[in-house]
């Protein structure tokens, strides 16, 4: 297990709690050894510099050209070409070629053809961290685009003509629709509470905004939203002034910030870690944690985005504060709904590479790869994976990959075994020379892709071209296989996916056999050989297949392909089940029937 995966270590009995939600107990006979191990673990799990991470010493015995090919597997230039770019409205901008305009953006960015370099530079000065509006996804049929940026630094009354120009350019780049949407993914009530503390400014805002209210017809947004936007503008950061941007519709969707998400997940894990948890505690815990509510909010935002493009043909600009957390979630999830390509194994890799890695989601900070500010850690990407999982649950046939694929990716954003997720932006990654010193995860996943195939995937279904998920509350469930991935006692004892996969494989094999046999029969017929020979031949090629089916289903199946699984026959021990506490009543007469250590995940590798 790579050390960088460890989240917290306690001295009590040398328990380790890992970021992949695995809890490991080491039982060390001597107390001094225990302390030593504890201290080493503590140090090793919090590296001070990148070069100490596992990826820099991991060596899968590949030569340099293989390594390079691995890194070239996901090629974003290729991806933009697939979207149909550049075209008459969009072009590749070289403005950020040397990371001069925005350090956290990639070198290659697509912008509207009519947006000149001065406009881009001007707009970037107006946007937080220089993250000006750029293209994230282009919908070829609708000629509409998903764009992303960070919040404007508009100040109380400031405006930026270049920024307004750039937005107009984005709007004009879509010939099908006159207006575009600007989606602010931040929740309203946060701004309200802030506003409440700033009463003086608040009063002014009320006056101004009521003036606007009277002056101009309110389009989509209600007055409250407008007030909040004004409130934030007063802080020097915030929202675009609607009056300065014509043909733009503003939409607010409430996704909470990274701190809320972090504590939400912590609460969730606390609830689940409780031994002897009652159903009631579990559901009130789920409710208090609010985790599922956040998942729903992210999904709802993505649905709004997808609908704006599909139904209204409108381009959408998405931003949050810095434009690398919630913005990444919404843009990538929206693209996933719109484009079936991203629902394939390879396409999903491209999507992560594009919307997350290249646009500067701060993996190292958010996953706490190094010993850094704990306030920067937040499960933003985990949340994205969970949203995708919910979609796979609702549309079992729409995804080429299965749950194990998502879990494996989650494993590796924390493991630091591969270079993909190290660092916070492309510039940093280049400085670290990751492509020369570490390996890319994607070829390894592709190599094992058999494990990650969804046997029910139907690539041709027209109905599943654009997904329209239903976000009624019932549809959001606790993702047991993520948060109890290593707790074998809680898993379904038999995996449907595996068995269907095997059936599928066997079907293919059998059909091939049938074909072979038929062609052999034909040959023999042509040769006019006698029937006896044919019969013998047939017998000799008959494969020995179906035994597999029964033998497999008796095994317990873990979702993650573990190298050497400690597999037992299902239900072989009631100690594996947590109701064994009841058995205490039996064992008063006959002790030591049931181990008291139920519910403790054992290490299997």
């Amino acid at each position: 297990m790579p050390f960088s995966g460890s989240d917290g270590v306690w001295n009590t009995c040398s328990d380790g709690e890992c970021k992949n939600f695995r809890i490991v107990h080491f039982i060390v006979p001597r107390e001094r050894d225990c302390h030593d191990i504890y201290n080493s673990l503590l140090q090793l799990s919090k590296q001070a510099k990148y070069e100490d991470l596992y990826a820099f010493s991991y060596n899968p015995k590949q030569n340099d050209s293989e390594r390079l090919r691995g890194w070239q597997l996901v090629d974003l230039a290729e991806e933009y070409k697939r979207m149909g770019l550049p075209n008459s409205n969009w072009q590749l901008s070289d403005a950020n070629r040397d990371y001069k305009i925005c350090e956290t953006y990639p070198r290659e960015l697509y912008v509207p053809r009519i947006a000149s370099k001065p406009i881009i530079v001007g707009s970037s000065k107006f946007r937080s961290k220089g993250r000006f509006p750029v293209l994230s996804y282009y919908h070829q049929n609708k000629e509409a685009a998903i764009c992303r940026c960070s919040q404007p630094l508009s100040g109380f009354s400031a405006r930026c003509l270049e920024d307004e120009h750039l937005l107009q350019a984005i709007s004009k780049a879509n010939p099908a629709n006159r207006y575009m949407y600007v989606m602010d993914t931040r929740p309203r009530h946060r701004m309200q509470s802030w506003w409440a503390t700033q009463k003086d400014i608040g009063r002014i805002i009320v006056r101004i905004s009521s003036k606007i209210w009277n002056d101009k017809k309110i389009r989509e947004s209600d007055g409250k939203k407008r007030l909040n936007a004004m409130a934030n503008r007063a802080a020097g950061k915030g929202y675009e002034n609607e009056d300065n941007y014509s043909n733009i519709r503003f939409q607010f969707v409430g996704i909470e910030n990274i701190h809320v998400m972090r504590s939400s997940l912590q609460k969730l894990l606390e609830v689940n870690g409780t031994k002897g948890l009652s159903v009631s505690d579990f559901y009130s815990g789920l409710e208090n944690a609010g985790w599922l509510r956040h998942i729903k909010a992210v999904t709802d935002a993505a649905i709004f985005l997808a609908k704006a493009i599909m139904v209204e043909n409108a381009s959408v600009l998405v931003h949050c504060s810095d434009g690398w957390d919630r913005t990444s979630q919404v843009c990538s999830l929206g693209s996933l709904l719109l484009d079936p390509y991203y629902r394939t194994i390879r396409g999903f890799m491209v999507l992560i590479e594009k919307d997350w890695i290249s646009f500067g989601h701060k993996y190292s900070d958010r996953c706490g790869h190094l010993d850094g500010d704990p306030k920067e850690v937040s499960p933003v990407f985990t949340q994205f994976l969970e949203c995708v999982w919910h979609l796979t649950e609702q549309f079992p046939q729409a995804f080429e990959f299965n749950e194990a694929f998502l879990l494996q990716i989650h494993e590796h954003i924390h493991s630091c075994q591969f270079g993909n997720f190290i660092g916070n932006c492309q510039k940093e990654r280049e400085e670290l020379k990751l492509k020369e010193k570490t390996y890319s995860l994607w070829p390894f996943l592709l190599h094992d892709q058999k494990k990650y195939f969804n046997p029910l995937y139907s690539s041709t279904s027209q109905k599943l071209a654009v997904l329209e998920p239903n976000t009624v509350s019932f549809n959001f469930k606790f993702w047991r296989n993520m948060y109890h991935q290593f707790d074998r006692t809680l898993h379904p004892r038999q995996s449907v996916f595996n068995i269907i996969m095997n059936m599928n494989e066997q079907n293919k094999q059998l059909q091939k056999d049938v074909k072979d046999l038929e062609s052999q029969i034909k040959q023999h017929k042509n040769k006019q050989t006698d029937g006896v020979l044919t019969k013998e031949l047939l017998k000799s090629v008959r494969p020995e297949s179906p035994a597999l089916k029964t033998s497999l289903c008796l095994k317990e199946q873990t979702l993650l392909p573990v190298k050497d699984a400690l597999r037992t026959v299902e239900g072989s021990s009631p100690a594996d089940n947590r109701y064994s506490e009841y058995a205490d009543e039996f064992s008063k007469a006959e002790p030591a029937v049931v181990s008291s250590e139920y519910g403790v995940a054992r290490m299997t590798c």
Partner: protein
Amino acid sequence: MEFSELIRTGQAQAELLRGPEMPPLRGTLCVTGHHLLLSPGPQATPDLWLLLLRSVDSIEKRVAGDAGTITLRCKDLRVLQLDIEGVEATLDIARSIEALSSLESVITSFPFFYRPKGLRLGESWHFHPPERYYKRVARETRAWRLSEANEDFSLCPSYPRAVIVPRAVDDDALARSARFRQGGRFPVLSYYHAPSGTVLLRSSQPLTGPQKRRCTEDEELLQAVLAGARPGARGFIVDTRSAQAAKQARMTGGGTEAKSAYPGWKRLHRPLERGRPLQESFVHLVEACGDLEQSMDRWLSRLDGCRWLSHVKEALSTACLAAQGMEWEGACILVHGAEGTDSTLLVTSLAQLILDPLSRTMAGFQELIEREWIQAGHPFQLRCAHSAFSHTRPKHEAPIFLLFLDCVWQLGRQFPLSLEFGEGMLLALFDHSYASPFGTFLCNSEKERCLCEVRTRTHSLWSGLNQPKEQRKLRNPLYAPNPLAIWPSVEPQSLRLWQGLFLRWTHPPEPSEVAWEKVWQIATDQEKTEGSQPTDSASEPQP
């Protein structure tokens, strides 16, 4: 009595709305003795839409202008809306439905008139569960016998004619023991666990009363059970009430077995919810499931508040306890609550599913339900008189059987390959237990069924379900026999709301149905290709 007296109006023009995903139907609405019919006009599809009036749980009418609306809430949790032309017609139809759906007489109910094509009346009741089961037990052990002491239902009105009892106990002793148990339900064999040679028994509470009465025959009966199992075997009495509730029952004549009177037996209390609280839990859950607009937090707090999943957890873990006692402790288990017709049966039948691979097959499961629920005297007619939408105050209604089906569903979710039947079977059982054209779930006991001549005058549900055309809906395509016990996880994280039932109509899971169809296709493809090889080789030898 004539149905025609209750039918106020023959027919009316109406439009039927069946939820968001289904197209509305227009046509002539017609009330008959047992059904509500909607016959679309000649231009539309020729299919008749048909609803068994018995499955109507509650009815609401509203009139506005010269049209009216009737909302029918069905026992299978469906909600239907009928828009009817004419105020008078609306009121008349509503009154007719109300009167006809609440008829209590068994012998005028639809099963007595239902004569489907392809089924013959005499052939349909092939089950003789106690007798058949006794044959299985007798193959393994000589310690038990089939007693016909209850031939005329005089010992216990809610038991079948034949029961399996220890060989060492004669019929007179049974009669005395029966007098010591509530409703005459003396301890009988429910399941013989061959691998460990232990048994699962069920009964009702002993009538110890405030004077702490005893009954020698009852004590001897339980002694004989231990003696018949293996030397030195211990026994556990699983009481499905809390210790306090069991103590309180003494005041009303009931109680529990005294420790000193039953050496070798130890009492365990596992309180399970029953009766009105369980019915209310069901009602609240269904209410919560009907609200599509609620926020995440509201939904989770309602799911928590209705406590349904807690009941599922308790039922499953009590069944696991009983099963574990037999399989791992080598102990005999006696399960009882108060009457021994509700939670007792829940525990014994679930324990068998966990331990016995045969009961997980299609035929075995049907036999289990016939033996452990229908013949064992679960009062279906009382318990399933109304479902979750009824406005009347529940008297005897309780969704114990539904709780059982939910637990089985949880087992099937955790062991998706080990049950031969699928979710469709469980849904069918739920629907039929509340309203059915078949006679299987009629009446409260075998005695009542004999009086009503259910066996000779109605069709059995099993013969209906076992027709080949029904199989694809009911079977689990992934089934592979599993000879081992299946121990479910009862942690809250492992239990899930049974969406297929509680959200069946509000929220049709279309994509997953298509996916399921694909699973079927893969499974049958495999059977086909596997099967086609030998025939290929057999048919091709001649040049």
